[in-house]
């Protein structure tokens, strides 16, 4: 085979690349910035969506939930399930599960001496709840619940405002037990939390699980079991195992089925990221093709010479593609470094509160945490290389199809 060895091809490509310093530098800068834009913007978008999704998921669901089959249609106390049995407890030991908790979750009414509001009452087990959803740091006055039999109540700051009540004051919480009898109880407010979303503060009030079970005469029953893992995207890998252990009598669902809006949001985002990467690439490809066309045009004679000496047209084609690949690889390397280098310092969060007014209703908070995903980086890199080489085929093909004599005699 009369193909130049890879090493020689690489060397030739490298030298040819630096023949026109300025053009190569400009092109490299363009690829670098383009790749940076792909990855950086994707990280921002991902951060935003993650934030929305996590707020969504953490604002109670958990990534996988177990419910009474009728609970989602009628989230009343009648549709409760038994506490996890031994089989389920064993399944919850799998390494993918980082935490799980069980909750009682019922519609309720909370009254202070000033006002009355409809809320969702959560009877929780504080230690595990903290790992699944509740962020104890958001308690800004008082304390969080200490254990399941804690007799205190934790409410949101907005709710405290509405009720014109305060830490240490007493409120009455009212709901129905399974026999449809009114069950009510006085609670002392032991903690007030602030959530990223004001609507959460107005919706959820927290009490000890045992306390709520007693109040509602539930025995050991709970409304839901919520489970989280390392990465909410990977639930499909492990949730069937839980589903099997939980049995047929209950409904075990991953988050995207519990909340189809969140699920479709994520799917849409994946598509959006792809479109974004391709748009940036298209802008780049013009520069890339131009660079190669110029590089080929300047070297007509020498390409003719190589052919005259016996290099096959296909070898010429590979040679030009090699140059393009080299350009792309260097640009990608720089772009990736730049992207990672700019995202990492921002991972502590970007304060977007100035522009984020009104974004809350979309489910985002006022801090944006860019999320650099390996998959996104791989996708950007693969797209740039594959499409980059594809667009380079045209100029490379042109070079390969020169007639050696005509090319040699070109002046």
């Amino acid at each position, binding site marked *: *085979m*009369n*193909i*130049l*060895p890879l090493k*020689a091809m690489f060397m*030739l490509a490298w*030298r*040819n690349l630096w*023949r026109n310093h300025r053009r190569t530098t400009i092109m490299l800068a363009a690829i670098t910035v383009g790749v940076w834009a792909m990855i950086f913007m994707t990280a921002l978008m991902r951060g935003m969506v993650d934030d929305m999704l996590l707020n969504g998921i953490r604002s109670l669901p958990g990534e996988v939930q177990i419910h009474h089959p009728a609970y989602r249609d009628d989230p009343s106390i009648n549709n409760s399930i038994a506490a996890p049995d031994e089989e389920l407890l064993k399944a919850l030991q799998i390494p993918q599960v980082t935490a799980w908790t069980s909750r009682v979750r019922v519609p309720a009414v909370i009254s202070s001496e000033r006002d009355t509001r409809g809320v969702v009452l959560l009877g929780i087990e504080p230690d595990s709840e903290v790992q699944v959803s509740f962020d104890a740091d958001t308690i800004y006055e008082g304390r969080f619940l200490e254990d399941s039999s804690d007799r205190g109540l934790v409410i949101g700051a907005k709710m405290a405002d509405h009720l014109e009540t305060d830490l240490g004051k007493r409120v009455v919480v009212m709901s129905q037990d399974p026999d449809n009898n009114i069950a009510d109880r006085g609670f002392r407010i032991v903690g007030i939390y602030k959530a990223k979303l004001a609507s959460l503060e107005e919706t959820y009030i927290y009490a000890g699980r045992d306390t709520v079970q007693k109040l509602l005469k539930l025995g050991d029953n709970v409304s839901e079991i919520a489970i989280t893992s390392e990465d909410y995207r990977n639930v499909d890998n492990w949730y069937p195992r839980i589903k099997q252990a939980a049995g047929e009598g209950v409904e075990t669902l991953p988050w995207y089925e519990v909340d189809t809006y969140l699920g479709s949001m994520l799917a849409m985002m994946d598509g959006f990221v792809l479109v974004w990467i391709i748009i940036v690439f298209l802008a780049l490809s013009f520069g890339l093709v131009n660079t190669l066309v110029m590089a080929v045009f300047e070297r007509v*004679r*020498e390409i*003719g*010479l*190589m*052919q*005259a*000496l*016996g*290099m*096959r*047209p*296909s*070898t010429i084609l590979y040679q030009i593609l090699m140059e393009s690949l080299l350009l792309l690889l260097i640009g990608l390397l720089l772009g990736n470094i730049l992207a990672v280098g700019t995202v990492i310092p921002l991972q502590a969060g970007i304060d977007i509160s100035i522009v984020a007014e009104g974004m809350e209703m979309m489910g985002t908070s006022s801090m944006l945490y860019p999320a650099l995903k390996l998959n996104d980086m791989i996708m950007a890199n693969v797209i740039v290389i594959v499409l980059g080489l594809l667009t380079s085929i045209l100029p490379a093909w042109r070079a390969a199809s020169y007639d*050696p*004599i005509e090319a*040699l*005699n070109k002046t």
Partner: protein
Amino acid sequence: MSSIVCKDLCKTFQQGEEIITGLDHVSIEIDAGDFVCLSGPSGSGKTTLLNAMGGLDTPDSGRIRVGNTQVDELGKGPLADMRLHKIGFVFQAYNLIPVLTARENVEFVMQVRGEPAQERSQRSHQILKEVGLEGMEDRRPAQLSGGQQQRVAVARAIVSKPTLVLADEPTANLDSVTAGQLMDLFVELNQNHNITFVIATHDTRVMAYARRLIKMRDGKIISDEKQQQPQIED
């Protein structure tokens, strides 16, 4: 056995309205191991004939055989293979790849042929020494004079001892001493390695080395004589 057989080659070029004759019914047989000079005034068709023999250019009609290969029947790829493996070229005008050093230019074809690295560097060193470029191996073409560049091209053409060397004005740009050394080298390779040489030239000093001198004019062969080749003294 004949190394090259050309039968009735015709080639015309179109330049605007004008039709220019490159080759006009040229038939010629060149024996293996011969040392042939093509001479004739500028525009007489020397380069055109060399290109046809080397499979670089296709004549409008006629047949060409080089060794056992019927050149006019080959496609682009096999033609490239033939040039690579059987023929050493020295072109009239543009010979070297600018981004490669003298040594790399010489090694380039060997590399494409897939010859091992050690052999390549040994032979390229040797041949560059023989053409008088010792110490300049690592210069790029732009750092060499026209004559030195020409010698690099010659070194590349003969480094792998091809069966046929087609050289177009190899001594253009060379002073008479270097030209003489180069011709001595050609004759040595011709006599000791049985390499066939076909050299197009205006240079009467070069013609003196030929064993067969072919004169062309207007795309035709006008004379074809055998002559005594000087023996080289070591």
